Each structure stands twice: as C-alpha cells, then as structure tokens.
C-alpha cells in the first residue's frame, strides 16, 4: 500500500495527540521513574526515582525553576519569572543543551541579552549541580558510582577496576 496524503495527516494528528497526552500527564503528576541516559557512555544510565524526589523536594520548582511548580524557589528566576505562565517545556533537556560549547552555541550566547540564560549550564552540569548540590546538603549519595555505575569503557577511561595500573608501576616526580 502506497502512503498517501491522508496517511501522513493521520500520522501527524496521532503524534500530536500522543505528545499532548504525555505532556498533560507530566505536568499534573510528573513521571514516576525517569531513565537518564542521554549522557550514558562511560557510566550507565541513571534510574531516577522522580516520584520519590517529588516527595522530598516538595515543590516542582526546586528543580524545575520557573518551568513548573509555583516558581518561588530560586531567587534568581523569580526576579523575572515570578509571574511567568507555566512552561510547556519541563524536561531538563528542553532547556539545557547536551553540547553547550559548540561554535553555534557560543555565537548564540554572545548575542543573548538575557544575562542569566547566557550562563546557563549544559545538560550534564544541570544534572550534577542540581542533584549533587542537594545531595551534599541533605546527606544523599555523592559518590559517582552511587548514582551511575561505571561501564567497562569507563573503567578503561579512568584506568580503574580491571584496567587499574599494576602495583609495581612507579610515578616519576
């Protein structure tokens, strides 16, 4: 069967419906579990218990800034965004770039007059700064492996585990 215009239109409508449903679900309850795997390479993906962290944080805007929640936490955001409507973009990766230092990104930042957003951390830093900052204060796990175990490639990279240097190796100093 050849794809026709109607099929394409149907597909578009279906996609739209699906994304609308998922975004509604996300805004109202938030996902129960989130697998953070966009940066998984040297480390395994993080199985993030979102529901448990909603309980601990209390307010969505503790982590999501002004995108959702009451927007009250984080004095810096509130300076401009206290009255902002809730954003359609909520996921960390909607705003924080995976590669924050590409030539295109640097050019965009140079032209950006919104100073807070110029210095916006990349996705990896957003995760680590947000998670680790809280974990250090609240006594959560802070070791690298406690959130994301290292892969074999990671062991090779860090010269650790099976790739650890032999005890006889001497270091010239």
């Amino acid at each position, binding site marked *: 069967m050849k794809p026709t215009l109607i099929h394409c239109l149907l597909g578009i409508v279906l996609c739209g419906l699906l994304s609308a449903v998922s975004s509604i679900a996300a805004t109202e309850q938030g996902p129960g579990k989130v697998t953070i795997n966009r940066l998984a390479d040297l480390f395994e993906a993080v199985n993030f218990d979102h529901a448990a962290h909603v309980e601990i944080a209390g307010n969505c805007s503790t982590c999501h800034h002004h995108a959702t929640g009451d927007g009250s936490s984080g004095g810096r955001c509130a300076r401009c965004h206290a009255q902002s409507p809730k954003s359609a973009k909520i996921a960390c990766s909607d705003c924080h770039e995976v590669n924050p*230092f590409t030539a295109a990104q640097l050019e965009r930042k140079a032209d950006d007059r919104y100073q807070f957003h110029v210095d916006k951390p990349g996705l990896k830093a957003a995760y*680590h*700064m947000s998670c680790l900052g809280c974990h250090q204060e609240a006594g959560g796990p802070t070791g690298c492996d406690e959130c994301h175990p290292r892969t074999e490639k990671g062991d090779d990279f860090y010269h650790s585990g099976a790739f650890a240097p032999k005890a006889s190796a001497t270091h010239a100093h």
Partner: protein
Amino acid sequence: MSGISRRRFLAGSIAGCAATTLCGAKQALAAGSFTGYPEGMGVLVDLTRCIGCRSCEAACNKEQGLPAPAKPFDDLSVFDETFHGGTQKRRTDETAYTVVNRYQPEGGGKPVYRKIQCNHCAEPACLTSCFVNAYTKTQEGAVVYNDKVCVGCRTCMVACPFNIPAFKYSSAFHAKIMKCIFCHETRLKNGRPPACVEICPQQALTFGKRRELIKMAYQRMQNEPGRYVDHLYGEKELGGTGWMYLSNVPFDQVGFDVTVQNEPILNNVKDFLGTVPMVLAIWPALFTGFHLLATKKDGHGHEDHPGGHSASGHGEEDKS
C-alpha cells in the same frame, strides 16, 4: 676629498643607526600593549563548582595519549600526596598536563579543589624566553610548542611564572617539553572545547571567547553576592591569561601566586633588550669613528703638503 667623504659616511651611518634604533624601540613598545587575540578562546574556572572528581585528568590523559597513571584516576588518595617536605602539592609533569589539588581553606569549611594546567597567557613568558621560537601563541588562544626546533635548554621552565612546562627527562636525547596545549591540534582549531572542559560534570570549566568569559565572570560575582572573592584571577595577571579563575576563598589559600605582576614577564627585560640593537648598530660605527679620529694625524699629514710627493715626510724629519 677623501676626508670629507669619510666624515659624510660616518654622519650618515650614525643617523641611520639612530633611526633604526628608534624604530626598533617603537616596535618594542607597541608589542607591550598586546593583550591577546580579539577572538582568542579561554576557560573560566569556577573553583566553587569543582568537586575534585579528577575526570579532567583522565580526559586529558586519553586525549593527549599520555602514559598510564601510577594510580587510577578515581583514586582520591592522590590529594594527600605532598612533595619537598610537605611544602608542595602535585604538579604537572611529563605524564600529566593537568592535575587537581585539594586545599583546606583557613577557618574550616568545605575543601576547595583547584585544577592546574597551562594558563595560556596572552604574552607568554615561555614564548618570549625561547630563543629558537619553539612556542607559538595561536589566534585561537592556545600556547603551543614545537619539539622539532626545541634544543632542550629549558629556559621556558624557568621563565614560566606558573611552573607549568615540564621536561621529558625520560627521553633526554630527544628534547621535549610537555605541557597543556589547550587540545589545539585535536579540538581547539576545529572550534571544539578541550577534553577536560567537555568531561567536567559540574561545568566548573566554562569554555568561550576570553572577552565573553570576563563578562560572564563579573556577572557571576554580581548575581551571587558573597559567593566569590571579588577578584578574577588571570584577567590582569601577567598581562592576562586565557584561563581565568573565580574562587570563594582568597586565592593565596588555594595555591595561587598572588604576588605576580600585572605586566607580562617580557616587560621586565624589554627596556634592556631595546638597547641591544642600539649597541649592535651604533658601537661599530662609533668605534670606527674613534679609530679614524685617533689615526687622523698620520692620514692628513700626507695631504697637507701640496704636490704630495712621496719624500715630503722624510723631508720634515730631516729639518728637525
């Protein structure tokens, strides 16, 4: 006739030398105002963000193909290592272009981690001290090194105010200086950040145009009052460095040399070196002049006598 032309020659040569020297001095002064390439890249290091994970060390090791480390890169016991009777923490060497050290600030508080590597000065002392031009400051902002021309004199190691260049003692017959080159060949010249910046989980290292990073640093200080000490290390130090630092504790407590001057190291010797061409150009002419003056009597003696017959000198001698 020969006397006049000699005088003219001397006057002309002295004037010429003076002109050359003055022009040279002017050029030397102009070089002193160099504050880096306008589009030069840099890195803003925020010590308040570093968690001491040593990932930058691992990334650097892999990117630059350096020898395997003595201890795994996730081994944090290296922070307890000290050298020279406990006075010195880890340094860059031929096996590591960058190292992270841990400092305990005075009066308690969380430990502060500081990454060391080449700071990529706008006007580097290593470059200006090198007499074979083994170093180059690229327009992307990196200070790179060419081992093909290096003679292994190690003057750069003495000249560097940050003690960064390391000598590859393990290959003494092929002189090589080992230092961070800002990943110039593999990354920077293709518009990519260095490996250490890319791996940093906390974005303690921010890559960008140096002039933009300065603005960003001041914004951070302004936006979060009390978080930082009011100084951007590297903005002015030694004529400006490509890598700059923000800290929450005074810089001298985290291993920074706060006694360094704001002038490039070259400025300390520029005035003196400006006299070298003068000496080289004027002295030969000057002393040739002295010599000619000193021997003037004999030479002119011949010409004072009309006719210029060959036996005139002997005639005078005979009369006396």
